[in-house]
Protein backbone atom coordinates (compact mmCIF):
# COMPACT_ATOMS: atom_id res chain seq x y z
CA UNK A 1 0.00 0.00 0.00
CA UNK A 2 1.02 3.59 -0.60
CA UNK A 3 -0.01 6.95 0.82
CA UNK A 4 -0.27 9.45 -2.01
CA UNK A 5 -0.62 13.20 -1.54
CA UNK A 6 -1.18 15.45 -4.54
CA UNK A 7 -1.10 19.26 -4.59
CA UNK A 8 -1.77 19.25 -0.85
CA UNK A 9 -2.20 22.64 0.80
CA UNK A 10 -2.74 23.48 4.43
CA UNK A 11 -3.56 26.65 6.28
CA UNK A 12 -3.83 27.72 9.85
CA UNK A 13 -5.78 30.75 10.95
CA UNK A 14 -6.33 31.84 7.33
CA UNK A 15 -2.62 31.81 6.52
CA UNK A 16 -1.41 29.28 3.97
CA UNK A 17 1.45 27.30 5.48
CA UNK A 18 2.27 25.08 2.54
CA UNK A 19 0.81 24.36 -0.88
CA UNK A 20 1.38 22.13 -3.92
CA UNK A 21 2.83 19.42 -1.73
CA UNK A 22 3.32 16.12 -3.59
CA UNK A 23 4.67 13.03 -1.94
CA UNK A 24 4.24 9.28 -1.99
CA UNK A 25 5.18 6.98 0.85
CA UNK A 26 5.12 3.25 0.16
CA UNK A 27 4.89 0.38 2.61
CA UNK A 28 8.09 -0.05 4.60
CA UNK A 29 9.14 3.55 4.07
CA UNK A 30 9.57 6.37 6.52
CA UNK A 31 9.10 10.05 5.78
CA UNK A 32 10.60 12.69 8.05
CA UNK A 33 8.86 16.04 7.92
CA UNK A 34 11.36 18.70 8.89
CA UNK A 35 11.46 22.45 8.85
CA UNK A 36 11.64 25.47 11.15
CA UNK A 37 9.02 26.22 13.79
CA UNK A 38 5.74 27.30 12.30
CA UNK A 39 6.46 25.68 8.94
CA UNK A 40 3.34 23.52 9.27
CA UNK A 41 4.76 20.16 10.33
CA UNK A 42 2.06 19.52 12.92
CA UNK A 43 -0.60 20.91 10.59
CA UNK A 44 0.43 18.47 7.87
CA UNK A 45 0.22 15.52 10.27
CA UNK A 46 -3.17 16.64 11.55
CA UNK A 47 -4.42 16.99 7.98
CA UNK A 48 -3.29 13.45 7.19
CA UNK A 49 -4.98 12.25 10.40
CA UNK A 50 -8.20 13.91 9.28
CA UNK A 51 -8.29 16.25 12.28
CA UNK A 52 -7.90 19.35 10.10
CA UNK A 53 -9.43 20.05 6.73
CA UNK A 54 -7.01 20.46 3.83
CA UNK A 55 -7.47 23.65 1.87
CA UNK A 56 -6.60 22.05 -1.47
CA UNK A 57 -5.29 18.87 -3.03
CA UNK A 58 -6.00 15.22 -2.45
CA UNK A 59 -4.87 12.53 -0.07
CA UNK A 60 -5.49 8.85 -0.59
CA UNK A 61 -4.30 5.40 0.24
CA UNK A 62 -3.60 3.21 -2.78
CA UNK A 63 -3.88 -0.50 -2.13
CA UNK A 64 -3.15 -2.45 -5.31
CA UNK A 65 -5.49 -0.80 -7.77
CA UNK A 66 -7.97 0.43 -5.17
CA UNK A 67 -8.09 3.99 -3.92
CA UNK A 68 -9.35 4.88 -0.47
CA UNK A 69 -9.92 8.25 1.19
CA UNK A 70 -10.23 6.78 4.63
CA UNK A 71 -6.75 7.51 5.84
CA UNK A 72 -7.69 8.17 9.47
CA UNK A 73 -8.84 4.66 10.23
CA UNK A 74 -5.54 3.24 9.00
CA UNK A 75 -3.51 5.65 11.11
CA UNK A 76 -2.17 5.97 14.61
CA UNK A 77 -1.64 9.54 15.70
CA UNK A 78 0.86 10.36 18.42
CA UNK A 79 0.61 14.07 19.10
CA UNK A 80 2.19 16.31 21.71
CA UNK A 81 -0.34 15.12 24.27
CA UNK A 82 -0.35 11.59 25.57
CA UNK A 83 -4.12 10.94 25.51
CA UNK A 84 -3.95 9.10 28.84
CA UNK A 85 -5.90 9.69 32.04
CA UNK A 86 -3.74 10.29 35.13
CA UNK A 87 -6.20 8.66 37.55
CA UNK A 88 -6.44 5.39 35.61
CA UNK A 89 -3.65 2.84 35.74
CA UNK A 90 -1.35 2.46 32.73
CA UNK A 91 -2.94 -0.89 31.99
CA UNK A 92 -6.51 0.47 32.19
CA UNK A 93 -5.58 3.33 29.86
CA UNK A 94 -4.10 0.99 27.28
CA UNK A 95 -6.85 -1.61 27.63
CA UNK A 96 -9.32 1.13 26.77
CA UNK A 97 -7.47 2.26 23.64
CA UNK A 98 -6.95 -1.37 22.62
CA UNK A 99 -10.68 -2.04 22.87
CA UNK A 100 -11.64 1.28 21.29
CA UNK A 101 -9.20 1.23 18.37
CA UNK A 102 -9.46 -2.50 17.77
CA UNK A 103 -7.37 -5.17 19.44
CA UNK A 104 -4.07 -5.94 17.76
CA UNK A 105 -1.83 -8.98 17.96
CA UNK A 106 0.02 -7.74 21.04
CA UNK A 107 -1.50 -7.75 24.50
CA UNK A 108 -1.22 -4.66 26.69
CA UNK A 109 1.39 -6.27 28.93
CA UNK A 110 3.45 -7.41 25.94
CA UNK A 111 3.36 -3.87 24.55
CA UNK A 112 4.37 -2.40 27.91
CA UNK A 113 7.25 -4.88 28.15
CA UNK A 114 8.42 -3.56 24.77
CA UNK A 115 8.75 -0.06 26.20
CA UNK A 116 10.13 -1.24 29.56
CA UNK A 117 7.06 -0.45 31.67
CA UNK A 118 5.71 -3.99 32.12
CA UNK A 119 6.51 -4.08 35.83
CA UNK A 120 4.53 -1.00 36.78
CA UNK A 121 1.45 -1.50 34.61
CA UNK A 122 -0.78 -1.35 37.69
CA UNK A 123 0.32 2.15 38.73
CA UNK A 124 -1.76 5.23 37.97
CA UNK A 125 -0.54 7.01 34.84
CA UNK A 126 -0.23 10.23 36.85
CA UNK A 127 2.63 8.78 38.92
CA UNK A 128 4.94 8.44 35.93
CA UNK A 129 7.77 10.76 34.93
CA UNK A 130 7.59 12.64 31.62
CA UNK A 131 9.67 10.07 29.77
CA UNK A 132 7.72 7.15 31.21
CA UNK A 133 4.46 8.82 30.16
CA UNK A 134 5.78 9.18 26.63
CA UNK A 135 6.78 5.52 26.55
CA UNK A 136 3.37 4.44 27.83
CA UNK A 137 1.78 6.42 25.05
CA UNK A 138 4.14 4.84 22.51
CA UNK A 139 2.82 1.51 23.78
CA UNK A 140 -0.58 2.67 22.52
CA UNK A 141 0.77 2.36 18.94
CA UNK A 142 1.61 -1.26 19.66
CA UNK A 143 -1.69 -2.52 21.12
CA UNK A 144 -3.73 -1.86 17.97
CA UNK A 145 -2.35 -2.69 14.55
CA UNK A 146 -2.43 0.23 12.14
CA UNK A 147 -0.17 0.47 9.09
CA UNK A 148 0.30 4.24 9.18
CA UNK A 149 2.03 5.89 12.13
CA UNK A 150 1.74 9.67 12.33
CA UNK A 151 4.23 10.90 14.91
CA UNK A 152 4.51 14.49 16.04
CA UNK A 153 7.83 15.03 17.84
CA UNK A 154 7.64 11.46 19.14
CA UNK A 155 10.90 11.53 21.08
CA UNK A 156 10.13 14.65 23.13
CA UNK A 157 10.99 13.83 26.73
CA UNK A 158 12.72 10.53 25.98
CA UNK A 159 16.27 9.79 27.11
CA UNK A 160 18.98 8.32 24.83
CA UNK A 161 18.23 4.69 25.68
CA UNK A 162 14.50 5.13 25.13
CA UNK A 163 15.12 6.95 21.84
CA UNK A 164 17.22 4.04 20.64
CA UNK A 165 14.58 1.56 21.68
CA UNK A 166 11.85 3.59 19.98
CA UNK A 167 13.94 3.64 16.77
CA UNK A 168 13.97 -0.15 17.04
CA UNK A 169 10.19 -0.25 17.35
CA UNK A 170 9.78 1.99 14.29
CA UNK A 171 12.23 -0.16 12.33
CA UNK A 172 10.20 -3.24 13.26
CA UNK A 173 7.01 -1.52 12.16
CA UNK A 174 8.59 -0.61 8.81
CA UNK A 175 9.86 -4.16 8.47
CA UNK A 176 6.29 -5.41 8.79
CA UNK A 177 5.23 -3.22 5.87
CA UNK A 178 4.17 -0.21 7.89
CA UNK A 179 4.56 3.47 7.10
CA UNK A 180 6.01 6.10 9.45
CA UNK A 181 5.49 9.80 8.91
CA UNK A 182 7.20 11.79 11.64
CA UNK A 183 7.49 15.51 12.23
CA UNK A 184 10.76 16.11 13.95
CA UNK A 185 13.89 18.21 14.02
CA UNK A 186 15.96 15.47 15.65
CA UNK A 187 17.35 12.47 13.81
CA UNK A 188 15.15 9.56 14.81
CA UNK A 189 17.82 6.91 14.23
CA UNK A 190 16.07 5.30 11.27
CA UNK A 191 18.29 3.59 8.73
CA UNK A 192 16.51 4.82 5.64
CA UNK A 193 14.11 7.70 5.61
CA UNK A 194 12.92 10.16 3.07
CA UNK A 195 12.82 13.79 4.05
CA UNK A 196 10.16 16.38 3.33
CA UNK A 197 11.38 19.87 4.07
CA UNK A 198 8.67 22.38 4.79
CA UNK A 199 9.09 26.12 4.79
CA UNK A 200 12.25 26.08 2.72
CA UNK A 201 10.61 27.29 -0.49
CA UNK A 202 8.49 29.94 1.23
Amino acid at each position, binding site marked *: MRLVAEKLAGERGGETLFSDLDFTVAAGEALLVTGPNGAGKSTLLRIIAGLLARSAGSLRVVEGSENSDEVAQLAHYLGHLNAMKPVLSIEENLEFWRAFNGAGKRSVIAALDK*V*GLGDIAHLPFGYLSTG*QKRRASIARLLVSDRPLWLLDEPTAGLDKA*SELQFAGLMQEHLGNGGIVIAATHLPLGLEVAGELRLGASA
Partner: protein
Amino acid sequence: MSETVSKTGRWIDWANPTRFMSFAGVILPWLAGLTLIVLAGGLWMSMQAPDDYQQGATVKIMFIHVPFAWLSMMCYTIMTIAALGTLVWRHPLADVSAKAAAPIGAVFTALALITGSLWGKPMWGTWWVWDARLTSVFVLFLMYLGIIALTRAMDDPAKSARATAILTLVGFINIPIIKFSVDWWNTLHQPASVFRMGGSTIDGSLLRPLLVMAIGFTLLFFTLHLMAMRNEIWRRRVVAMRRVAARNADRGPVQ
Protein backbone atom coordinates in the same frame (compact mmCIF):
# COMPACT_ATOMS: atom_id res chain seq x y z
CA MET B 1 16.47 24.23 80.39
CA SER B 2 16.88 20.50 80.21
CA GLU B 3 13.22 20.18 81.05
CA THR B 4 12.15 22.20 78.01
CA VAL B 5 14.37 20.10 75.80
CA SER B 6 12.90 16.87 77.05
CA LYS B 7 9.44 18.33 76.70
CA THR B 8 9.92 19.29 73.07
CA GLY B 9 11.63 15.96 72.62
CA ARG B 10 8.56 14.14 73.78
CA TRP B 11 6.34 16.41 71.74
CA ILE B 12 8.27 15.55 68.60
CA ASP B 13 8.35 11.87 69.52
CA TRP B 14 4.62 11.86 69.55
CA ALA B 15 4.52 13.65 66.26
CA ASN B 16 6.43 10.82 64.64
CA PRO B 17 3.85 8.78 62.70
CA THR B 18 5.67 5.52 63.42
CA ARG B 19 5.53 6.16 67.17
CA PHE B 20 1.90 7.09 66.77
CA MET B 21 1.18 3.87 64.91
CA SER B 22 2.68 1.67 67.63
CA PHE B 23 0.88 3.72 70.28
CA ALA B 24 -2.41 3.36 68.42
CA GLY B 25 -1.79 -0.36 67.96
CA VAL B 26 -1.41 -0.84 71.71
CA ILE B 27 -4.26 1.34 72.84
CA LEU B 28 -6.89 0.51 70.22
CA PRO B 29 -7.99 -2.95 71.49
CA TRP B 30 -8.39 -1.59 75.02
CA LEU B 31 -10.27 1.46 73.84
CA ALA B 32 -12.54 -0.65 71.67
CA GLY B 33 -13.23 -3.05 74.53
CA LEU B 34 -14.02 -0.23 76.93
CA THR B 35 -16.31 1.38 74.34
CA LEU B 36 -18.19 -1.89 73.95
CA ILE B 37 -18.67 -2.32 77.72
CA VAL B 38 -19.81 1.26 78.34
CA LEU B 39 -22.17 1.24 75.34
CA ALA B 40 -23.65 -2.12 76.37
CA GLY B 41 -24.15 -0.82 79.91
CA GLY B 42 -25.66 2.41 78.63
CA LEU B 43 -28.00 0.52 76.33
CA TRP B 44 -29.16 -1.73 79.16
CA MET B 45 -29.73 1.29 81.41
CA SER B 46 -31.67 3.00 78.65
CA MET B 47 -33.95 -0.01 78.31
CA GLN B 48 -34.61 0.08 82.02
CA ALA B 49 -35.46 3.79 82.01
CA PRO B 50 -39.15 4.64 82.39
CA ASP B 51 -41.23 5.81 79.43
CA ASP B 52 -42.26 9.42 79.28
CA TYR B 53 -45.91 10.02 80.24
CA GLN B 54 -46.40 12.20 77.16
CA GLN B 55 -44.05 10.78 74.55
CA GLY B 56 -44.14 7.11 75.52
CA ALA B 57 -41.26 4.96 74.28
CA THR B 58 -40.15 7.51 71.67
CA VAL B 59 -38.36 9.38 74.43
CA LYS B 60 -35.73 6.67 74.31
CA ILE B 61 -34.50 8.03 71.01
CA MET B 62 -33.06 10.78 73.19
CA PHE B 63 -30.47 8.35 74.54
CA ILE B 64 -28.79 8.15 71.16
CA HIS B 65 -29.89 11.46 69.71
CA VAL B 66 -28.30 13.65 72.38
CA PRO B 67 -24.89 11.88 72.24
CA PHE B 68 -24.90 12.19 68.43
CA ALA B 69 -25.67 15.89 68.64
CA TRP B 70 -22.96 16.38 71.27
CA LEU B 71 -20.41 14.48 69.16
CA SER B 72 -21.25 16.45 66.04
CA MET B 73 -20.09 19.57 67.87
CA MET B 74 -17.16 17.96 69.68
CA CYS B 75 -15.83 16.56 66.42
CA TYR B 76 -15.85 19.98 64.80
CA THR B 77 -14.01 21.39 67.81
CA ILE B 78 -11.37 18.66 67.47
CA MET B 79 -11.02 19.48 63.79
CA THR B 80 -10.59 23.16 64.67
CA ILE B 81 -7.82 22.31 67.14
CA ALA B 82 -6.24 20.09 64.49
CA ALA B 83 -6.51 22.98 62.01
CA LEU B 84 -4.63 25.19 64.46
CA GLY B 85 -2.11 22.36 64.80
CA THR B 86 -1.60 22.36 61.06
CA LEU B 87 -1.34 26.12 60.63
CA VAL B 88 0.41 27.22 63.83
CA TRP B 89 2.48 24.30 65.10
CA ARG B 90 2.81 22.47 61.78
CA HIS B 91 2.25 19.22 63.58
CA PRO B 92 2.51 16.40 61.02
CA LEU B 93 -0.33 14.42 62.57
CA ALA B 94 -2.75 17.35 62.84
CA ASP B 95 -3.75 17.14 59.21
CA VAL B 96 -4.21 13.36 59.45
CA SER B 97 -6.40 13.91 62.50
CA ALA B 98 -8.56 16.53 60.79
CA LYS B 99 -8.94 14.48 57.62
CA ALA B 100 -9.87 11.35 59.59
CA ALA B 101 -12.33 13.20 61.84
CA ALA B 102 -14.37 14.88 59.08
CA PRO B 103 -16.27 11.80 57.77
CA ILE B 104 -16.90 10.53 61.30
CA GLY B 105 -18.25 13.93 62.32
CA ALA B 106 -20.43 14.05 59.21
CA VAL B 107 -21.89 10.61 60.00
CA PHE B 108 -22.62 11.56 63.62
CA THR B 109 -24.23 14.81 62.48
CA ALA B 110 -26.35 12.93 59.95
CA LEU B 111 -27.34 10.44 62.65
CA ALA B 112 -28.27 13.33 64.96
CA LEU B 113 -30.46 14.78 62.21
CA ILE B 114 -32.06 11.41 61.41
CA THR B 115 -32.74 10.47 65.03
CA GLY B 116 -34.03 13.98 65.67
CA SER B 117 -36.33 13.61 62.71
CA LEU B 118 -37.60 10.21 63.96
CA TRP B 119 -38.12 11.68 67.39
CA GLY B 120 -39.95 14.70 66.08
CA LYS B 121 -42.21 12.89 63.60
CA PRO B 122 -44.90 11.94 66.20
CA MET B 123 -44.87 15.44 67.66
CA TRP B 124 -44.54 17.64 64.58
CA GLY B 125 -46.55 15.37 62.32
CA THR B 126 -43.84 15.75 59.69
CA TRP B 127 -40.30 14.51 59.19
CA TRP B 128 -38.66 17.88 59.14
CA VAL B 129 -39.33 21.39 60.40
CA TRP B 130 -37.09 24.38 59.86
CA ASP B 131 -36.68 24.83 63.58
CA ALA B 132 -33.72 27.00 64.60
CA ARG B 133 -31.79 24.22 66.30
CA LEU B 134 -32.31 21.67 63.54
CA THR B 135 -31.48 24.18 60.87
CA SER B 136 -28.20 25.08 62.59
CA VAL B 137 -27.21 21.42 62.81
CA PHE B 138 -28.15 21.01 59.16
CA VAL B 139 -25.86 23.89 58.20
CA LEU B 140 -23.12 22.23 60.27
CA PHE B 141 -23.72 19.04 58.28
CA LEU B 142 -23.28 20.96 55.02
CA MET B 143 -20.03 22.40 56.35
CA TYR B 144 -18.74 18.90 57.14
CA LEU B 145 -19.57 17.75 53.62
CA GLY B 146 -17.85 20.79 52.15
CA ILE B 147 -14.69 20.05 54.10
CA ILE B 148 -14.76 16.39 53.04
CA ALA B 149 -15.22 17.41 49.41
CA LEU B 150 -12.22 19.75 49.69
CA THR B 151 -9.95 17.10 51.23
CA ARG B 152 -10.94 14.64 48.50
CA ALA B 153 -10.57 17.12 45.66
CA MET B 154 -6.86 17.71 46.20
CA ASP B 155 -4.28 15.05 45.53
CA ASP B 156 -1.32 16.53 47.33
CA PRO B 157 -1.82 16.04 51.11
CA ALA B 158 0.45 18.96 52.03
CA LYS B 159 -1.52 21.41 49.92
CA SER B 160 -4.94 20.14 50.93
CA ALA B 161 -3.96 20.19 54.61
CA ARG B 162 -3.50 23.97 54.73
CA ALA B 163 -6.56 24.72 52.59
CA THR B 164 -8.74 22.44 54.72
CA ALA B 165 -7.35 23.93 57.93
CA ILE B 166 -8.16 27.46 56.77
CA LEU B 167 -11.69 26.45 55.74
CA THR B 168 -12.24 24.67 59.08
CA LEU B 169 -11.14 27.74 61.04
CA VAL B 170 -13.28 30.12 59.01
CA GLY B 171 -16.20 27.73 59.56
CA PHE B 172 -15.56 27.65 63.30
CA ILE B 173 -15.51 31.44 63.54
CA ASN B 174 -18.71 31.48 61.50
CA ILE B 175 -20.63 29.05 63.70
CA PRO B 176 -21.85 31.67 66.24
CA ILE B 177 -22.81 34.01 63.41
CA ILE B 178 -24.75 31.24 61.69
CA LYS B 179 -26.42 30.25 64.95
CA PHE B 180 -27.40 33.87 65.68
CA SER B 181 -28.76 34.57 62.23
CA VAL B 182 -30.69 31.30 62.09
CA ASP B 183 -32.29 32.09 65.47
CA TRP B 184 -33.16 35.58 64.27
CA TRP B 185 -34.55 34.24 60.97
CA ASN B 186 -36.64 31.71 62.86
CA THR B 187 -38.20 34.14 65.37
CA LEU B 188 -38.81 36.58 62.54
CA HIS B 189 -40.92 34.01 60.76
CA GLN B 190 -42.79 32.64 63.78
CA PRO B 191 -42.40 28.90 63.13
CA ALA B 192 -45.53 26.97 62.31
CA SER B 193 -44.89 24.31 64.90
CA VAL B 194 -43.57 24.78 68.40
CA PHE B 195 -41.11 22.28 69.74
CA ARG B 196 -40.19 22.40 73.41
CA MET B 197 -38.55 19.85 75.63
CA GLY B 198 -41.54 20.17 77.96
CA GLY B 199 -39.67 22.89 79.77
CA SER B 200 -39.08 20.55 82.67
CA THR B 201 -35.72 19.49 83.99
CA ILE B 202 -34.80 15.96 83.04
CA ASP B 203 -35.38 13.42 85.75
CA GLY B 204 -32.41 11.56 87.21
CA SER B 205 -33.77 8.23 85.99
CA LEU B 206 -33.30 9.52 82.44
CA LEU B 207 -30.17 11.55 83.07
CA ARG B 208 -28.00 8.66 84.28
CA PRO B 209 -28.38 6.42 81.21
CA LEU B 210 -28.01 9.49 79.01
CA LEU B 211 -24.70 10.32 80.64
CA VAL B 212 -23.41 6.75 80.27
CA MET B 213 -24.48 6.70 76.63
CA ALA B 214 -22.76 10.03 76.01
CA ILE B 215 -19.52 8.68 77.49
CA GLY B 216 -19.90 5.46 75.52
CA PHE B 217 -20.38 7.26 72.21
CA THR B 218 -17.51 9.64 72.97
CA LEU B 219 -15.29 6.60 73.49
CA LEU B 220 -16.66 5.17 70.26
CA PHE B 221 -15.71 8.37 68.50
CA PHE B 222 -12.14 8.21 69.74
CA THR B 223 -11.85 4.54 68.77
CA LEU B 224 -13.08 5.29 65.26
CA HIS B 225 -10.93 8.38 65.04
CA LEU B 226 -7.76 6.50 65.97
CA MET B 227 -8.59 3.75 63.47
CA ALA B 228 -9.29 6.29 60.74
CA MET B 229 -6.03 8.10 61.47
CA ARG B 230 -4.16 4.82 61.23
CA ASN B 231 -5.84 4.07 57.90
CA GLU B 232 -4.98 7.51 56.59
CA ILE B 233 -1.30 7.06 57.51
CA TRP B 234 -1.29 3.65 55.85
CA ARG B 235 -2.96 5.07 52.78
CA ARG B 236 -0.34 7.81 52.48
CA ARG B 237 2.46 5.28 52.88
CA VAL B 238 0.99 3.15 50.09
CA VAL B 239 0.80 6.21 47.82
CA ALA B 240 4.41 7.11 48.64
CA MET B 241 5.56 3.55 47.99
CA ARG B 242 3.78 3.48 44.63
CA ARG B 243 5.50 6.70 43.61
CA VAL B 244 8.86 5.23 44.61
CA ALA B 245 8.00 2.10 42.61
CA ALA B 246 7.29 4.24 39.54
CA ARG B 247 10.65 5.99 39.91
CA ASN B 248 12.60 2.77 40.51
CA ALA B 249 11.05 1.09 37.50
CA ASP B 250 12.99 3.55 35.34
CA ARG B 251 15.97 1.27 35.16
CA GLY B 252 16.07 1.79 31.42
CA PRO B 253 14.11 0.01 28.73
CA VAL B 254 14.53 -3.64 27.94
CA GLN B 255 16.12 -4.17 24.56
